[in-house]
């Protein structure tokens, strides 16, 4: 049975409470990798799906975002930088941006190594991202110098995509305790503070 968008919109609006904010919604994983290589892109899509299935629905691929300048196209590293700026420009939302860099061994054939390096350069430009950057790298990939600037405990050496998924979701879930604490603290202070001076607490 086909449901038209208005009926579907109505059905969702009636149960809008299901869209209340959860702790997972504070995390904004951006899945990065060798865009342009079909095998790698399929893996990136699978990683995004794995995040969504675990409740991290803000996980996004750069490829998902339509380019408003079309027919001109924006390079992926510029798109990544613009996306971070867009997230940061809204000071009312508490956001934690998590760049997830998946390095497929396609880079050994010369595809995407430069792009991966440029993603690392953008992360270096926003130093606060370093803490939350996760790298999933195949054990067979060539050396990438910028990997030295990522926290070693956030770099996972993998032999398959499945193994990478097995590391990524628990890594993201590892933030949950602190995220719940952040939400609780914010709401608790808001209720106690009648003078509405909680901006310094809620803004990130």
């Amino acid at each position: 049975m086909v449901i038209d968008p208005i009926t579907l919109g109505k059905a969702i609006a009636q149960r809008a409470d299901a869209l209340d904010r959860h702790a997972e919604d504070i995390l904004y994983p951006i899945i990065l990798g060798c865009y342009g290589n079909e095998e790698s892109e399929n893996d990136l899509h699978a990683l995004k799906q794995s995040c969504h299935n675990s409740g991290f629905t803000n996980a996004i691929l750069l490829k998902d975002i339509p380019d408003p300048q079309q027919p001109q196209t924006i390079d992926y590293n510029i798109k990544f930088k613009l996306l971070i700026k867009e997230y940061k420009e809204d000071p009312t939302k508490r956001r934690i941006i998590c760049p997830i860099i998946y390095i497929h061994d396609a880079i050994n054939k010369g595809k995407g190594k430069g792009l991966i390096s440029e993603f690392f350069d953008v992360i270096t430009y926003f130093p606060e991202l370093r803490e939350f950057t996760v790298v999933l790298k195949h054990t067979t990939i060539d050396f990438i110098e910028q990997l030295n600037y990522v926290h070693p405990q956030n770099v996972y050496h993998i032999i398959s995509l499945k193994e990478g998924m097995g590391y990524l979701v628990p890594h993201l879930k590892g933030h949950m305790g602190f995220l719940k604490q952040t939400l609780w603290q914010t709401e608790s202070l808001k209720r106690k503070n009648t003078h509405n001076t909680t901006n310094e607490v809620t803004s990130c």
Partner: protein
Amino acid sequence: MLEGVRSFEGAEFMKDELALAILLELGTRERISFPELVDKLPMDEDLLKQKLNLLEEQGFIKQNPSNISDKPFEQRKYLLGVKGILLLNKIRHEFPQYHTHFRFFF
């Protein structure tokens, strides 16, 4: 403990069924022109324009190639902004019963 936390990005639109319908339709393709939206969504044209302006102001959708407020609606093309994509992702996750009806391009 977390009761009362209702500050998700799309909060103001969650109960607006027409705005949600527009977002759901825009999620089906990367770009949709205003005349195509008129064909797809059986609603009053002025109301459609009003909702599109609202969604654009809030950053859920954008114009292609750029936002020009005085451009005639008939010549406009729309696409989802990042906020719109995130809200639809959340909807897709929270309403699995409608899974087969979501035809999102992402």
